[in-house]
């Protein structure tokens, strides 16, 4: 059936089975391919999106459960007051190696900073531990979060 969704502030519609995970609706039906598939079991964080501002793993959310909640993806972060700062920090420090996990990292980091503008190292660990970076760019991820929050980077 057709589901009405709000993605990055725009109303969209997806005609899919209700049990289809939001990840695949975003990627294959709606074309928001910035959200990545990594594990399918909420173990890697590559598919992190915001549901009403909360970081969630899109691979675990059946589209029928979304309802009227507002979905934000990496494609919407340039228009997000915190997200754009996080993206800028990620660019300035050129955090990525392969880059595959970084959309999920940026989504988790944005949700962290929206709630906790000046996170401590322990708060960064807690908020970001669900996001695997296989290239292990963790030194730069931490530095970029510090930078985006206006804190000393090292």
């Amino acid at each position: 059936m057709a589901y009405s969704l709000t993605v990055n502030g725009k109303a969209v519609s997806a005609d899919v089975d209700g049990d289809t995970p939001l990840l695949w609706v975003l990627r294959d039906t709606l074309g928001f391919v910035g959200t990545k598939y990594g594990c399918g079991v909420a173990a890697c964080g590559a598919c992190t999106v915001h549901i009403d501002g909360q970081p969630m793993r899109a691979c675990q959310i059946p589209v029928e459960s979304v309802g009227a909640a507002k979905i934000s993806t990496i494609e919407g972060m340039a228009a997000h007051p915190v997200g754009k700062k996080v993206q800028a920090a990620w660019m300035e420090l050129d955090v990525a190696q392969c880059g595959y996990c970084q959309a999920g990292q940026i989504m988790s980091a944005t949700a962290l900073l929206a709630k906790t503008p000046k996170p401590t190292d322990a708060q960064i660990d807690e908020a970001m531990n669900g996001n695997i970076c296989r290239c292990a760019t963790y030194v730069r991820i931490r530095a970029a979060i510090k930078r985006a929050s206006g804190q000393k980077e090292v």
Partner: protein
Amino acid sequence: MTYHDLKANRREILTSVGAGGLTLAFSIASKAEAQDDTVKPLNAYVRVAPNGKVTITAKNPEVGQGVKTMLPMLIAEELDVAWEDVVIEQADSDPKAYGRQFAGGSMATPLHWEELRRVGAVARAMLIQAAATAWNCGPGDCATVPGNVVHKPSGKKRTYGSLAMACANVTPPDPKSLTLKDPKTYNIIGKPKAQYDVAKIVTGEPLFGIDVRRPGMLYATYEKAPVFAATVASADLEAAKSVKGVRKAFVVEGDPKAMSPGPGNIGQGLMPGVAVVADSWWAARKGRDKLNIKWNDHPTSKQSSKLFAEQAKAIAAGKAQRTARNDGDVDAALKASAKTVEAAYAYPFLSHANLEPQNCTAEFKDGKLEIWAPTQNPEPGRQLTAKTLGINPDDITVHMIRGGGGFGRRLANDYMVEAAWIARETGAPVKLLWTREDDMAHDHYRPAGFHFFRGGVDAAGNVTAWHDHFVTFGEGTTMAPSAGMSAAEYPARFVPNCRLEVSTMPLGVPTGPLRAPGSNALAFVMQSFIDELAHAAGADPLAFQIKLLGDKPTVGEPPAAYGAARMRGVLQAVGEMSGWGKTKLPMGEGMGVACYYSHLGYFAEVAHVACSPEGAVKVKKVWVAADVGSQIINPHGALNQVQGSVLDGLSEALHQAITIEAGRVEQSNFTDYRLMRISEAPAVEVKFLKTDFPPTGLGEPALPPAIPALTNAIFAATGKRIRSLPITPDMLKA
């Protein structure tokens, strides 16, 4: 280099990602600006648009190692163009234009350092010649400043853009005839550059193999046997097809050669399985769940990690199958040693675990096949696909798409052959995507291995005897892929009495290169056993390592020459950086040192760990001293590679093992095959020593010594010697 050094160059970083600050659309806008089909390219790599924008082709596959940015830097430097005016385009697989195109062996730098600078120099010489012709002067009267040719006597200038058209009439000079720049004058090489695709990465634009879309494209999933290469006995294709959105479900018999369990064959071709093709990937998966596949028995269904370990022990108790090296008299030297040590080491199979699961998109139309593949090795993929499908390789085009991690996994092209086969059977463009579980169950694993050591030191702390019986996988003298060892493996040639023996066991598990193949395991065993001998001798491990390297600058002849002086240099440097021997550490903490030469790079590393009585390991910091020659091409990328390699090594040592039981892989996802998380990642301080050697690569050589630096630090902290990986709390409990 540390972050502080990079910060001093922050302006440079900003400049390279967009003039005047952050322009998230940088690469797209520039690409459009640089488009002009009226101007002939200067050569296969360089095209100058009338507006002065220069398009440079990146020849090799990009999987996160940074070559899409780094290789064009070499061309841009000698072309003498401003980096802001450079647009980078990814090449397709085209060996006629670009030669070998692959991402492996940390070879991009050593293979291209000279060649691609000369490509840039040739293009610059052509622009100078075009200007000289216009000015009616000799090329000797001309010089360049970035983007312009200058007439020296008058100071007149012509932009490259205004000369590009006239270059069509200029004969390119012999690259060897040109004088390259003095490195002191470099504007681009040695200056930190952001990855060219950084804006696309942070905004989530389509970039990776998994993001490829074609008009009318369908989605495929492909199930293979958990026991490698077992064939399909039955499958309920009709049940799969009854799922909404499923278009096709069919058995693929596969290539008989891919099924033979001999080394070098298994997994290299089309493995048998069942394909499900649907309107969406989720529908294909749901269809797959209904297949109820029965697999035929296979000769490898009895193999297990446990049996391999038992078999290795039994082999080691007897006579080795083969002696690879026998210097002096090991047995006599052991008898005469002041101290002797015996130890058995083991390491497990490992998976590459690329975060982007294997995938490939293929379209078969009118006898021609077009492929979009995140591959590290396109040309062998094209050949394998041609052979398997029985079509002419010239009828296959391979587009190289950025891969979400390589680590050696994408040197194999199994996913490419599968996608091509399924697309032809389907008669529509198809994107094949493996599940995470498929990816973990069907890797080309880092082979497990077993080493049985005896070693001796004299009263003065010299290593007098070294005996390693390496039990590995293969048949006779043919090793399973990435399961071999060089007869010159260090410390061979540095120990007067040295015997290296090799025995093999047959294996029905696909193996292949994992980042720093061979070295990622051998560094652990060799450098740990050297550390054992240092402690047996009562010596400081760092001083012992330096002494073992002797006093000669190099030992052996190319290509197996070992730069002993270079290794002593990095060991001394890492000792200074880490405050080795000067830091008083609390109980339960320790520092360990290790060094390793691989991929033409010399690395010494010190790890500082804290171990709890419950057996938890916390790595507090790692110091790295590296010697990869005279020039770091992109310091920003170089630092990222080294830090990532070190953490990758720690992640392997602390967490990872693929185990085989009943012929199949037991792990299935990141829940039971763990990767390091941010909370575990220590700071990694890196220093590059510049030496008078040609620059070499950085994708791999920092990884191997990280593992023994860690395990040697654990010994210093706890007195527990780690002889098998991964490290478990049980090994460390007080």
